């Protein structure tokens, strides 16, 4: 099969090219010279662009190799599935079905033939390629290797990441062009005497970091084992650290970088715990082995024995019983990492601060790479999550999406609005994943990546055009000055708001958000106790539309608020607008067809088997997880609700910001409490300050006091004692020890003087000594052993 070798090869090339680019860009050229050349940028673009081409070819090859079975099999999916769900006999009695579900709980074989339509129905993922690229080391039974695990999700992610990254790279070439100098003046950083910081441009360094970032993200997506994911996870973290803190001279940038890094560490600590549990109990890191090992019955429940333990057979053939609680711990641990990376409640505070980096970085971090990594991992690790964990994920997502959306309503910095919207949308994804909408969550991940990168680039274009002004209240009416930016931004805004004319025209955000809301509705219908999981996203759909249109109206609509800025604003050069157009096309059209569309079907092709049918309530969890059919039932209803919410939010925004019928400052005064509460981001930073930092400071002060007063005193006292002891010791040394040594030395010396006489310095005598010695030796020999 051509795909078996070609696809991993192509993806490996696409993955490694940015690393090569990183090396070349870092090492390129002489000092002085490399700050002023665009060469590194072209190099980076070439690397990631080639990567995109490779990914695209791999995707097409994959489709060719599987005969696009994904798309076809899922065409039957909805109604057929529905039918089989309705008929429990058919479902339960089909031995074939059971066998295929049990054996191939998450099919790992290189290729599963899908010629049999019966199989195709139940095994919706036609092919998975997994294998090992390179074994790094074997420590006992622990094998650390670079693996790949390629299914349709991987391919879609690869294509999406490389495409967006290519656009962002191109955009950044325009955006970062003012770094192309030996004397860059940073207006936001000041030296101690109050002057602006002058430094050589860091154009090449920016692109080197970007390349490394892409390499890390692609490695994470390609990774075939959880340990490798962790490694690239951390690499992504360090790259984001480097890029957020790109303007190192600015204190705010440094702080933001530190914050992002530290927040991520908190999450990664949980991740490590999860890793330990996985390694200790499953004995392997490989996805292909891990997903096999968890037994599920026909209904999708994890099989437990009487003691509540899960019997698994590890890859080495050993059978083990894992306490169910440990599965929860493992799942929560890994999810903790995702919380950190995807900026979920309660670790969401780093993300808005990460706006300190250059805007292309924000675009990359917020759409395709860093934050997507968390969602991607949840999706990838999905078969290992037990219902309790999923519920946690859903609640965390719900809280996050609501929280962030409310903050976004009052934010005035254009990038911050987008940042909060990112958090909010990530919350949507997590929620979708948590309520058993595997494909819905990842669908939203992909569509969000497109329109969010589009919007960030648009905002970057605005900032670039307005000479690094980011405050929305100073903008307005820019539509006339930068029509392309405004238009593409509007597409992004419509997409994220989920506005559509159902059945006629719908941008990508509408479809994905619809899917999530529908899943949530199906979920609360099955579990009415968790009604918040539907209400919050529905409400937030309205809020989202509100604050997004608020942003657009603020920025592009109406009359200019700051004439000075308006006068100097200009449309960005083609190298920045071209990516906008490309991304706008994708933001609008990538989800064409909705749940019958190609993208969704591709994603569905990688869905874990037990998801499709849903999981009925069991004795343990008492949680019903809706299957596709249940979701399908409520889809239309949920879609209407969501569309209504979005339209109302849009109208509200138009009324408040598009027309001048409402005095905004009055409103602000009237709602001062809420406004204050929201614009202080629900006081999370203060809360963390009070909860963590202050106690630490106080404890530290206490310890410092203990140090100074008690320990130092003891140390001083012992020092004095030591001085006394050593004085005595010196006396002992000088008299007894030295005396002995000197005695030996004198004896050696005098014997040396005696022996010196033999060393005459005459070679001939030495020769004679040798002869005498030999003769004497032989004499002894002869007398001792006569014959």
């Amino acid at each position, binding site marked *: 099969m051509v795909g078996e070798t070609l696809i991993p090869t192509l993806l490996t090339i696409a993955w490694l090219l940015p690393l090569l680019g990183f090396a070349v860009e870092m090492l390129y050229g002489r000092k002085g010279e490399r700050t002023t050349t665009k060469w590194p940028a072209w190099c980076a673009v070439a690397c990631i662009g080639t990567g995109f081409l490779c990914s695209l070819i791999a995707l097409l090859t994959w489709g060719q190799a599987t005969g696009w079975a994904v798309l076809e099999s899922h065409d039957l999916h909805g109604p057929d599935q529905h039918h089989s769900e309705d008929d429990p006999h058919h479902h339960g009695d089909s031995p074939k079905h059971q066998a295929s579900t049990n054996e191939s709980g998450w099919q790992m074989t290189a290729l599963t033939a899908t010629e049999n339509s019966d199989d195709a129905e139940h095994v919706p993922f036609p092919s998975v390629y997994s294998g090992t690229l390179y074994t790094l080391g074997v420590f006992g039974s622990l094998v650390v290797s670079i693996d790949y695990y390629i299914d349709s999700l991987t391919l879609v992610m690869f294509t999406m990441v490389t495409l967006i990254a290519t656009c962002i790279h191109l955009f950044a070439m325009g955006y970062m062009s003012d770094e192309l100098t030996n004397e860059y003046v940073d207006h936001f950083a000041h030296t101690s005497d109050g002057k602006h910081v002058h430094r050589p441009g860091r154009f090449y360094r920016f692109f080197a970091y970007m390349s490394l970032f892409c390499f890390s993200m692609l490695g994470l997506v390609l990774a075939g084992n959880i340990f490798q994911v962790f490694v690239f996870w951390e690499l992504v973290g360090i790259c984001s650290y480097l890029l957020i803190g790109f303007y190192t001279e600015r204190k705010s940038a440094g702080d933001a970088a530190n914050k992002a890094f530290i927040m991520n560490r908190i999450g990664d600590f949980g991740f490590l715990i999860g890793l330990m549990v996985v390694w200790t109990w499953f004995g392997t890191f490989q996805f292909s082995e891990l997903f096999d090992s968890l037994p599920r019955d026909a209904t999708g429940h994890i099989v437990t024995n009487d003691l509540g333990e899960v019997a698994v057979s590890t890859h080495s053939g050993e059978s083990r019983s894992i306490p169910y609680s440990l599965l929860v711990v493992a799942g929560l641990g890994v999810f903790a990492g995702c919380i950190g990376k995807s900026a979920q409640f309660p670790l969401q505070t780093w993300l808005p601060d990460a706006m300190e980096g250059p805007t292309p970085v924000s675009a990359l971090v917020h759409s395709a790479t860093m934050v997507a990594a968390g969602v991607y991992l949840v999706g990838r690790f999905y078969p290992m999550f037990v219902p309790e964990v999923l519920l946690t994920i859903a609640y965390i997502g719900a809280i996050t999406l609501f929280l962030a959306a409310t903050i976004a309503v009052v934010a005035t910095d254009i990038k911050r609005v987008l940042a909060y919207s990112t958090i909010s949308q990530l919350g949507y994804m997590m929620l979708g994943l948590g309520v058993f909408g595997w494909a819905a969550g990842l669908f939203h991940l992909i569509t969000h990546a497109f329109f969010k990168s589009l919007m960030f680039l648009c905002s970057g274009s605005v900032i670039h055009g307005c000479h690094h002004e980011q405050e929305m209240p100073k903008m307005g009416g820019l539509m006339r000055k930068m029509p392309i930016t405004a238009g593409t931004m509007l597409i992004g805004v419509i997409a994220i708001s989920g506005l559509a004319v159902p059945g006629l025209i719908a941008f990508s955000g509408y479809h994905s958000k619809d899917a999530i809301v529908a899943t949530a509705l199906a979920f609360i219908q099955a579990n009415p106790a968790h009604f918040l999981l539907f209400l919050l996203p529905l409400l937030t759909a309205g809020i989202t539309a509100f604050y997004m249109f608020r942003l657009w109206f603020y920025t592009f609509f109406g009359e200019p608020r700051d004439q000075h800025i308006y006068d100097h604003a200009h449309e960005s050069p083609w190298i920045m607008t071209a990516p906008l157009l490309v991304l706008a096309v994708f933001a609008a059209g990538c989800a064409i067809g909705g749940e019958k569309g190609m993208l969704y079907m591709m994603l569905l092709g990688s869905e874990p088997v037990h998801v499709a049918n849903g999981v009925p309530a069991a004795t343990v969890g008492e949680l019903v997880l809706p299957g596709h059919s249940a979701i399908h039932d409520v889809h239309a209803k949920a879609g209407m609700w969501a569309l209504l919410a979005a339209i109302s939010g849009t109208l509200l925004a138009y009324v408040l910001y598009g027309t001048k019928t409402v005095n905004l400052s009055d409103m602000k005064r009237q709602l001062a409490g809420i406004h204050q509460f929201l614009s202080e981001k629900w006081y999370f930073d203060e809360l963390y300050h009070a909860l963590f930092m202050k106690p630490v400071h106080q404890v530290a002060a206490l310890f410092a006091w203990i140090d100074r007063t008690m320990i130092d005193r003891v140390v001083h006292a012992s020092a004095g004692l030591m001085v006394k002891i050593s004085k005595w010791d010196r006396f002992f040394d000088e008299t007894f020890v030295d005396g002995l040594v000197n005695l030996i030395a004198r004896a050696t010396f005098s014997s040396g003087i005696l022996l010196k006489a033999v060393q005459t*310095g*005459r070679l*001939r005598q030495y020769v004679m000594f040798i002869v005498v010695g030999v003769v004497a030796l032989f004499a002894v020999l002869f007398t001792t052993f006569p014959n």
Partner: protein
Amino acid sequence: MATKRNAIGILMGVELVLNGANVNLVAFSHYTTLGIDGQIYSLFVIVLAAAEAAVALAIALNFYNNHLTIDVDRANRLKG
């Protein structure tokens, strides 16, 4: 070796001694079951003697450069 004060003379003595050993090696190997082992040993001895001669001559030249003589009795700085 024992009668020469000239460094090169000593070297010649060394060569003679090695040569005597070679004769013994070859002769004994020829008249016993050793085959050609003796010849190979003496081949090694010859080669090593050549190497030794090269180094020794270099040392002698150095010595001459430093002391303007080649009398080894003058090389007594390390005398006890």
